[in-house]
């Protein structure tokens, strides 16, 4: 095998599909037959300097894939498999890997360092491979630069894989010392210095203690700042990346370095190559992000003089920062508006200017206005565009009082520029700026809108005209219309848009039919605006929306007629179907939810449903999702009448529930099951066996994305509420699953915010399931079937209370379940309830909550318990 493995690995990268397939099968077979020997062969291959680089690289890659996977569950399985291997096998593999770090072949070294980091990620938390860091550190002192480079790279990957808690401070200190020494200007070898700089980027999370120590922090910062001046561009870029990372991780430690950092970044923005300059701008953007977050926190809670403190770096840097950013605006690239992937200094600088405006508010206005006034009428399009972009950027942040007088003057100028400016780039930015004006200076939340009944007509005329302009300008005009319309969302029946409603819809439909609507996302933008127009329609304009139904249905029908499409055409068809289903979804929700229009609208229900089913027949994830959402809205509007569509729809519902790969589709289908439960109530019963089977399978699957699991639990509740005591037969499956999920989620180690958020979603799903089941069984003679589950459920509630990390939504759901349990089980549960903490301290806490939803839920629980115990 050892002889053969090289050839197999090479064949696996062959351009010949047959030999590639054969090689892949052989590898798979080898792995299945003798996993330890498979690993030894691969690591031997990787370590062998005699072997071709391609086979070595692939050997390392396969090794890495035996250790790690994206999906958390799979990842855990792989880690367990590695840990359970014979110690001597593991030792041999590791020896090969460490040996490879000294290989003269860069790709082999680099691959080995990644594999080492993966193994470290598995073993270090288990307190295994304690000698690794020592070995790596001793490598650093070797003279050969390539070994040093590979070792630093390994340390970098290692810091990325392993969480900081795993390493003790002594090791961290040694790693950081090695890394920072490698970065030092005295390091003669650029490869080493680059590897060290990149390693620091990952090691920053480990440096908490070091950043709290003034001397150590000064030293690290000095080395990073020096690296930004390196003659080697890659080192400068990596050093700025470190600065960006430091700005978010150690915002509160930056005060004494800000002056120096400003000088460094300003120089880079003005003089350096683009990749470096972009990082330098990004530094300021991320400082803005930090300060916006902190100030938001201040705003939401005045008592929060807690651990976060705003240093107002942006405010202090403002007089120098703003001119630097304004300069970047003049460095536009021709045609950047047509290029979806473009990202250049002008774009980054403008974006940063917008963030600065949000951070400091009014203070930015006087610093930017002279630039605008100076440039907005210049003959050079770059100056007009830069001025317009600057104006658009500062519309979010400053107070309406500050902006209104300026915008009142500027509005007419902008409308004229959108019509008359000879340059498309200027028109593009002008239309975008108008959209920003409508977004922030107009609408029910704005005290005095800059839009009046008088100028509204003029604005609409210009926008509708501009929608006939080149695609990128038309797209921005559609976007501006979106916000103009949105501002009238709450204006009630007398919307100033009503007289133009028909024209607006016609104009948007014409845009969707443009031959070039595929460019610059134009068609999408037109449909999005159309959706917003529908959402903001009033009783008065509802008839016009009603007329839109057959039009959109016809469009959708036409996409279904097309045959023998090329791959490219099929993709376009799918996209269009997605847009049309999305639009129908919005219409259904609008017309189906108002009593006045519902009846007339429902005459289209049969045809709509038929179209959606045909759309499902040409499977595509996005379309599937949009059509599914539309059907959910239709079910809600149709109520019990939806039952007649169930036979035809059910197969697609099943498909959606089985779609593990496109988990959003699965999640949305689960939500639609809930819609159908509420629409059909007990009439959903004949379909429940199938639905429950799929939901239970979904829950047990390791393949399904975890975010779908909470909604599945909620869906159990929806089903139970719909079919009542008929849920009996599912209890033996659903209850144990709920129970084990409850146990897991009650004491989940919530290390980070994201995990805590997920845990709370899971808890909420479980609690909604319990609520639905209890309420479903209420008044049934079979209530007693639930009695055996009561102790565990009460325990779950108690432990949630004791853990003290639930959010408001969970709190409301939890205390509600307490009420539902009491309500349904009555006197029988009295003693159990009396023993629970939930019925005392938890309930008391909720009763005096400031959140009225929690309070209402607690009122319910208190009442239900009182009835249960006195009854």
């Amino acid at each position, binding site marked *: 095998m050892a002889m053969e493995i090289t050839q197999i690995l090479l064949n696996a990268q062959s351009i010949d599909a047959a030999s590639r397939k054969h090689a892949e099968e052989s590898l798979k077979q080898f792995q299945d037959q003798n996993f330890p020997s498979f690993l030894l062969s691969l690591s031997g291959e990787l370590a062998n300097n005699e072997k071709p680089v391609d086979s070595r690289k692939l050997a390392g890659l396969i090794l890495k894939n035996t250790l790690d996977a994206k999906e958390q569950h799979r990842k855990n399985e792989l880690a367990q498999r590695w840990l359970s291997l014979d110690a001597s096998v593991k030792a041999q593999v590791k020896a090969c890997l460490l040996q490879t770090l000294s290989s003269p072949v860069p790709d082999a070294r680099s691959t080995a360092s990644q594999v080492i980091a993966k193994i470290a990620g598995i073993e270090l938390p288990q307190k295994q491979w304690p000698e690794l860091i020592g070995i790596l550190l001793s490598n650093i002192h070797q003279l050969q630069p390539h070994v040093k480079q590979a070792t630093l790279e390994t340390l*970098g*990957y290692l810091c*990325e894989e392993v969480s900081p808690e795993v390493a003790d401070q002594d090791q961290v200190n040694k790693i950081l010392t090695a890394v920072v020494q490698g970065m030092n200007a005295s390091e003669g070898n650029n490869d080493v210095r680059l590897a060290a700089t*990149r*390693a620091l*980027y*990952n090691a920053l999370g480990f440096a908490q203690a070091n950043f709290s120590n003034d001397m150590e922090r000064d030293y690290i910062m000095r080395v990073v700042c020096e690296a930004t001046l390196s003659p080697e561009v890659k080192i400068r870029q990596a050093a700025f990346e470190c600065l*960006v*990372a430091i700005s978010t991780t150690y915002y509160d430690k930056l005060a004494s370095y800000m002056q120096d950092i400003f000088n460094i970044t300003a120089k880079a923005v003005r003089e350096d190559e683009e990749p470096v300059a*972009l*990082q330098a701008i*990004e530094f300021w953007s991320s400082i803005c992000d930090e300060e916006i977050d902190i100030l938001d926190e201040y705003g939401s809670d005045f008592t929060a003089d807690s651990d976060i403190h705003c240093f107002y770096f942006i405010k202090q840097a403002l007089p120098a920062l703003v001119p630097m950013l304004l300069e970047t605006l003049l460095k536009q690239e021709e045609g950047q*508006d047509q290029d979806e992937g473009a*990202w250049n200094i002008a*774009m*980054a600088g403008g*974006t940063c200017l917008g963030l600065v405006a949000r951070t400091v508010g009014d203070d930015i206005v006087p610093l930017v206005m002279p630039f605008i006034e100076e440039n907005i009428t210049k003959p050079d399009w770059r100056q007009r565009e830069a001025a317009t972009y600057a104006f658009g950027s500062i519309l979010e942040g400053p107070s309406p009082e500050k902006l209104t007088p300026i915008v009142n003057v500027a509005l007419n100028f902008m409308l004229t520029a959108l019509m008359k400016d000879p340059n498309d780039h200027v028109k*593009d*930015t002008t239309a*975008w700026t108008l959209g920003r004006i409508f977004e922030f200076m107009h609408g029910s939340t704005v005290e005095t809108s800059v839009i009046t009944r008088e100028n509204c007509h003029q604005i609409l005329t210009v926008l509708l005209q501009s929608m006939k302009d080149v695609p990128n300008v038309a797209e921005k005009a559609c*976007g501006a219309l979106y916000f103009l319309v949105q501002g009238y969302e709450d204006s009630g029946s007398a919307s100033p848009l009503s007289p133009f409603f028909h024209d607006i819809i016609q104009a948007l439909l014409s845009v969707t039919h443009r031959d070039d609507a595929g460019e610059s996302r134009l068609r999408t933008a037109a*449909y*999005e605006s159309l*959706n*917003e127009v529908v959402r903001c329609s009033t009783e008065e304009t509802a008839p016009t929306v009603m007329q839109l139904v057959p039009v959109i249905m016809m469009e959708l029908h036409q996409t279904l007629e097309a045959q023998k499409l090329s791959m490219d055409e099929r993709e376009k068809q799918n996209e269009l179907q997605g847009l049309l289903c*999305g639009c129908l*979804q919005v219409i259904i*929700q609008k017309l189906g939810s108002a009593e006045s229009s519902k009846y007339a609208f429902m005459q289209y229900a049969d045809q709509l449903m038929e179209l959606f089913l045909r759309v499902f027949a040409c499977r595509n994830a996005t379309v599937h999702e*949009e059509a599914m*959402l539309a059907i*959910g809205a239709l079910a*809600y509007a149709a109520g019990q009448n939806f039952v007649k569509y169930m036979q035809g729809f059910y197969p697609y519902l099943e498909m959606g529930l089985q779609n593990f790969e496109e988990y*959003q589709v699965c999640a*949305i289908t689960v*939500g639609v099951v*809930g*819609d159908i439960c*509420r629409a059909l*109530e007990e009439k959903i019963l004949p379909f429940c066996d199938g639905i429950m089977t799929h939901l239970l399978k979904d829950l047990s699957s390791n393949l399904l994305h975890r975010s779908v699991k909470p909604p599945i639990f909620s869906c159990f*509740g*929806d089903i139970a*509420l719909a079919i*009542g005591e008929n849920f009996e037969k599912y209890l033996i499956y659903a209850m144990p699953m709920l129970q084990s999920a409850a146990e897991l989620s009650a004491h989940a180690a919530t290390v980070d915010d994201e995990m805590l958020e997920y845990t709370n979603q899971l808890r909420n799903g479980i609690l*909604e399931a319990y*609520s*639905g089941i209890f*309420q*479903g069984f*209420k*008044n049934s003679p079979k209530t007693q079937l639930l009695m055996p589950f009561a102790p565990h459920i009460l325990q779950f509630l108690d432990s949630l209370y004791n853990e003290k990390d639930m959010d408001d939504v969970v709190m409301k759901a939890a205390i*509600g379940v307490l*009420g*539902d349990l009491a*309500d349904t089980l009555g006197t029988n549960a009295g003693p159990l309830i009396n023993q629970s903490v939930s019925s005392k301290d938890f309930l008391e806490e909720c009763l005096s909550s400031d959140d009225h939803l929690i309070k209402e839920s607690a*009122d*319910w629980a208190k*009442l239900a318990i*009182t*009835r249960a115990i*006195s009854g």
Partner: protein
Amino acid sequence: MAPHELRRPFKRPAISDQQRRRDLALIRQTQQRSDSQNRARRLASSLFDLPSHSFPDACQADFPDNVDVGYAIALEQSPELEASSPTVRHLDFVQASKLKGSAARHWFARQLMLTEWMIDVPPNLDRDWYVFARPAGKRCFVVSSNGSTVSRLRNGSVLHHFPSSLPNGARTKEISAPSHVYCILDCIFHEPDQTYYVIDMVCWRGYSLYDCSAEFRFFWLNSKLSETGACNPPSTYHRYRFSVVPIYDCNRIGLHKAYTGGFAFVKDGLLFYNRHAHYQTGNTPLALVWKDELCSQYVLDTDSEGHVPAEQQVVLELQDDGKLTTSDDPPILFGCLEKEIIQKSSFQAGNFLRFSVIDECVRIVDGKLELGDLKFVGKANRARAFADSYSKVFFQYTARHSPLQFQDLIASLDPNLDENSESNDMEMID
């Protein structure tokens, strides 16, 4: 070692419309789930379980030609009713409030808990009972739902239709509660200060308190009512003030406070509620009324002109077989009308007839009141929905001859149980 994505959203909103559609769909689903949950919770198990036999019959008997809305029809045609309860047929107040005319009156007339008159002092008065002064005025149900408030008298007829600060009691800009939320209060409307005095809470924000003890209902009433602003002075969206009545533990202090204390309202006797009793529609011996001349202007019944007649009068219901009965369940027989008289008159079963009591004929046998011969006076007022109850007839009789006196109440208290419950009073008055 991938540094974070540099590119930020450029000239495009951070959230796509597709994401917005998803989010809006999720919000809709969450909202609807919570609505269904709340609907289920509000469908209390033992609420309004109307015996299907008695009501449509009564309806037909009383209003044979009434095509307005019969209860039975209303039940058939009310889709919400079916939707909210696939298995159990409950008619709840919101649906009942959609009933019109006589059907509505008939329905509401049967929802109040009616006190018996105190003939004997119940045992453990001080341990198990509350006492409070009864405001003089019209007993009524107040229902707030769907942005308006309606009060209905004992006979089911509408007293006021008005906006109030009760949850969902007015159409105001700021939404005080989700649309399905409603409240039902047992009140006395006190004319002089145009105030609804709430004496009991039956449903609050859609949650039933029927199965809760009086102790809990009073606690809930005292803590919840003021939260809503219903006790504030009248305003545009709140036409009448609501007020709670101070409720006392029925010990010596409590009894004295209720009996002699000064209140914002004119007193009409004392009410006694057993603290463990649930809210029960119709007559109940667990809620009692007692009056004497000092605490009420209306101890003895008056006639339609407001005069106390020389002889005690009673209103009884005529049955199929000519028997004359009280409103109790089961009815108590007080006399019988001969067939000939019925045939000669236009009387029908179910009519309420007024009689004078002839004192000489009255006897009390084993503690039971027997009226003996009665003198027919006439048909009772049309608005009447009930005959007199046995306890009322008995109380009126004793009031004229050997009334139960305040001293008798005091004397019945256990002297050992006395002065320790002052603090409890405070909690209830709040």
